[in-house]
C-alpha cells in the first residue's frame, strides 16, 4: 500500500487533510443556530450566508477536484476542445443571473429547499416533482463518485495504492457532514480555495519558466498533435468540432445551475444582492480553471507519461494522473504535498454539498411526499442526515466495486439528463404556459433522445497506421455526429443539446394536445410578486395564517 511513497508529500498532505477535517467538525458551532435539527439549518446553513461565504461555497462547489484533474487531462489528450470549460464557465453566470434571483425569491417566500419543491408548487404536479427529484439524485450520485477519482489520482501520484486511504477519507467526510451539515463545506471551502489559488498561481509562474516559456510549451503541443493520427485533436479546433465546442459550452452552462448542489449553494445565500454579486465574482474561478487547463500542455512539454500508459499496447493510461505527476516533477516535495492536499480537499467540499443536496431531494420530495406526510422539522433533518450517509456509501461502493469508468459514463449522462429538467424549473420560473403533462412528456422525450444519442457515440482510437480501433462501442463521449441523423456532414453536436431541443419541442406539442383534450392544469401555489421578494419581506412560512 505504501511502496515508493514520498514521505514528505504524504506528511504535508495528511497534516492539511486532518486539519481540514477538524474544521469540518468545528463548523457545527460556527454561526451557531438555536437548533441544527431543522433542514433550513443542516441543509442550507440557516439561509443566511453573505457574499464572501457564498463565493467560497459556490466556487468550491462548482469547480471540483474532478474538474481540476479532468480538464487538463482532456487538454493533454485532445487539445483545444478541452478548453470548452472556459467559455462554459464564462457564459453560465450571465445566463443564470436573472433566473437565480427569481428562484431564490420564490424559494425564500415558500421555504423551498430543492428545485423539485418549486416544481411541485408551481405546476401542481407531484409526479413532475418526483421526476425532477429523481433526475437530480441520479445526476448527482456519479458526480460524488468522481470526486473520489480526483482523490485517487492524487494518492496514486504520491505512490499510495489500495482502497483503505480513500475509505478512511470518505468516512471522515461522511461523519462531519452528518454532524455539521452545509456549514462544514462552507468553512472548509475557505481553506480549499486559498490553497488552490496559491498552487495554481505558483504553477503558472514556475512551470512555464522551467520549461522555457509558452512558445516552447505550445510548440511541443503542436508537434504532438501533428504527429497524432487523430484528426480531431490539435491546439486549435478542427472544423467539425467548432459546433461541438459551442454547444458543449452552452449546454453545460444551462445544466450547471440545474444540478441540485448548485441550487443548494444559491438558496443558502442571505439575499438577492449576494447572488448578483457572486455572478460577477465567481468568474475568478474561471480564470484559475483556464490556467489549469493549460497545465495539460505543460505536461506535454514536460513529457509526462500518464500512470498505466503503455506504448506497446496503445493503452493511453490514466490521464487524470498527469497534473499530480506534473506537480511531482516540477515542485519540491513539500509544495507538491500542498498541491495534492489542495486537490484532495477540493474533492471534499463538492462531495459534501452534493450529498447534502441529494439528501434534501430525498427528504423533501420522496420521504415527506410519500412516506411520512406529517414529518416534523426534526424528522426531516434526521432523514436528510441519514440519506447523506447512504448517498456517500453508494458513491464509495460505485468506485470500489465497479469500474470507475462506469461513474465517468454516468456523470457524462448526468449532465445530459439534468438538462431535461430545464423546462420545468427554469421556464417554469417565467411562464405557466406549459401543461404539467406536457412537461412530463417533454422530460421523457429528452431522456430517451439523450440516452439514445450517447448510446450511439463510439470512442475511437486512431492508430499510427491509419486504422481506427473502436475502444468503446457505446457511451464513448458526448459529441454526437450529426450524420447519424442522416445529415451529410462531419459536424458534431453536444448530445445534451440535441436532447433538450427534442424535450422543448415535445413540451410545446404535448401542451397544445393536452389543452385541446381539456386535461385540467395543475394549480399554481405561487404568486407573481413572490418572484421578486427580497430579504426583509415576510416569508409565508413565517406567517402560517396566510397559507391556510
Amino acid at each position, binding site marked *: 500500500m505504501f511502496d515508493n511513497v514520498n514521505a514528505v508529500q504524504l506528511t504535508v498532505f495528511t497534516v492539511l487533510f486532518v486539519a481540514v477535517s477538524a474544521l469540518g467538525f468545528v463548523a457545527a458551532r460556527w454561526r451557531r443556530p438555536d437548533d441544527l435539527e431543522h433542514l433550513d439549518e443542516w441543509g442550507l446553513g440557516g439561509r443566511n450566508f453573505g457574499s464572501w461565504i457564498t463565493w467560497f461555497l459556490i466556487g468550491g462547489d462548482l469547480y471540483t477536484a474532478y474538474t481540476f484533474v479532468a480538464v487538463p487531462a482532456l487538454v493533454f489528450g485532445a487539445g483545444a476542445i478541452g478548453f470548452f470549460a472556459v467559455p462554459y464557465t464564462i457564459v453560465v453566470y450571465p445566463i443564470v443571473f436573472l433566473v437565480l434571483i427569481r428562484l431564490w425569491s420564490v424559494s425564500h417566500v415558500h421555504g423551498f429547499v430543492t428545485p423539485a419543491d418549486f416544481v411541485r408548487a408551481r405546476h401542481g404536479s407531484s409526479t413532475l416533482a418526483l421526476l425532477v427529484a429523481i433526475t437530480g439524485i441520479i445526476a448527482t450520485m456519479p458526480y460524488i463518485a468522481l470526486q473520489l477519482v480526483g482523490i485517487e489520482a492524487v494518492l496514486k501520484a504520491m505512490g499510495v495504492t489500495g482502497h483503505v486511504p480513500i475509505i478512511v477519507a470518505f468516512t471522515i467526510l461522511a461523519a462531519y457532514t452528518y454532524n455539521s451539515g452545509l456549514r462544514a463545506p462552507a468553512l472548509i471551502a475557505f481553506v480549499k480555495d486559498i490553497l488552490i489559488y496559491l498552487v495554481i498561481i505558483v504553477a503558472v509562474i514556475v512551470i512555464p519558466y522551467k520549461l522555457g516559456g509558452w512558445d516552447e510549451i505550445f510548440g511541443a503541443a503542436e508537434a504532438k498533435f501533428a504527429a497524432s493520427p487523430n484528426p480531431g485533436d490539435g491546439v486549435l479546433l478542427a472544423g467539425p468540432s467548432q459546433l461541438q465546442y459551442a454547444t458543449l459550452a452552452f449546454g453545460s452552462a444551462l445544466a450547471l445551475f440545474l444540478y441540485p448542489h448548485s441550487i443548494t449553494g444559491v438558496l443558502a445565500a442571505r439575499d438577492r444582492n449576494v447572488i448578483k454579486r457572486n455572478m460577477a465574482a465567481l468568474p475568478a474561478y474561471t480564470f484559475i480553471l483556464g490556467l489549469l487547463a493549460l497545465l495539460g500542455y505543460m505536461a506535454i512539454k514536460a513529457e509526462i507519461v500518464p500512470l498505466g500508459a503503455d506504448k506497446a499496447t496503445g493503452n493511453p493510461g490514466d490521464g487524470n494522473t498527469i497534473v499530480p505527476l506534473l506537480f511531482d516533477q516540477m515542485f519540491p516535495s513539500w509544495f507538491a504535498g500542498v498541491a495534492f492536499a489542495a486537490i484532495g480537499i477540493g474533492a471534499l467540499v463538492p462531495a459534501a454539498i452534493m450529498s447534502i443536496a441529494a439528501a434534501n431531494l430525498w427528504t423533501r420530495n420522496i420521504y415527506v411526499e410519500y412516506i411520512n406526510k406529517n414529518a416534523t422539522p426534526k424528522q426531516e433533518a434526521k432523514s436528510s442526515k441519514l440519506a447523506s450517509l447512504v448517498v456517500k456509501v453508494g458513491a464509495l461502493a460505485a468506485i470500489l466495486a465497479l469500474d470507475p469508468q462506469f461513474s465517468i459514463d454516468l456523470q457524462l449522462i448526468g449532465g445530459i439528463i439534468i438538462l431535461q429538467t430545464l423546462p420545468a424549473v427554469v421556464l417554469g420560473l417565467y411562464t405557466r404556459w406549459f401543461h404539467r403533462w406536457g412537461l412530463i412528456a417533454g422530460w421523457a422525450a429528452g431522456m430517451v433522445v439523450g440516452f439514445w444519442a450517447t448510446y450511439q457515440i463510439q470512442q475511437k482510437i486512431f492508430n499510427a497506421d491509419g486504422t481506427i480501433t473502436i475502444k468503446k462501442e457505446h457511451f464513448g463521449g458526448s459529441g454526437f455526429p450529426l450524420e447519424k441523423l442522416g445529415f451529410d456532414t462531419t459536424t458534431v453536436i453536444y448530445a445534451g443539446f440535441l436532447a433538450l431541443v427534442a424535450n422543448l419541442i415535445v413540451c410545446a406539442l404535448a401542451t397544445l394536445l393536452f389543452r385541446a383534450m381539456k386535461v385540467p392544469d395543475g394549480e399554481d401555489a405561487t404568486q407573481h410578486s413572490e418572484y*421578486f421578494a427580497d430579504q426583509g419581506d415576510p416569508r409565508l412560512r413565517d406567517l402560517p395564517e396566510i397559507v391556510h
Partner: protein
Amino acid sequence: MAEHLPDAAKRAERSDHSPWNWLLLLPLAVTLYPPLYNRESPDLFGIPFFYWYQMVAIGIGVTCTIVVYRMTRR
C-alpha cells in the same frame, strides 16, 4: 413615488425588467461563436490567440455582470 402605497402593493410593483439586462447577452456573443477566435495569431507571450482571447473574455463577462448589477440595484 410609491411611498404612500401599502407594503403589499409596493411588492407587487416590483420587477426585474431593465434595459441594462440586454448587456448580459454580450458575453455569450463573444464566446459562443468559435470561428471568431479559432486561430493562432496574434499570439501573446507565445500563447495562441484562441487561448488568451478566451481568458480576456472572462473579463468581458465580469464587466457586463458588474454593470448590470450596479445599474439595476435597488
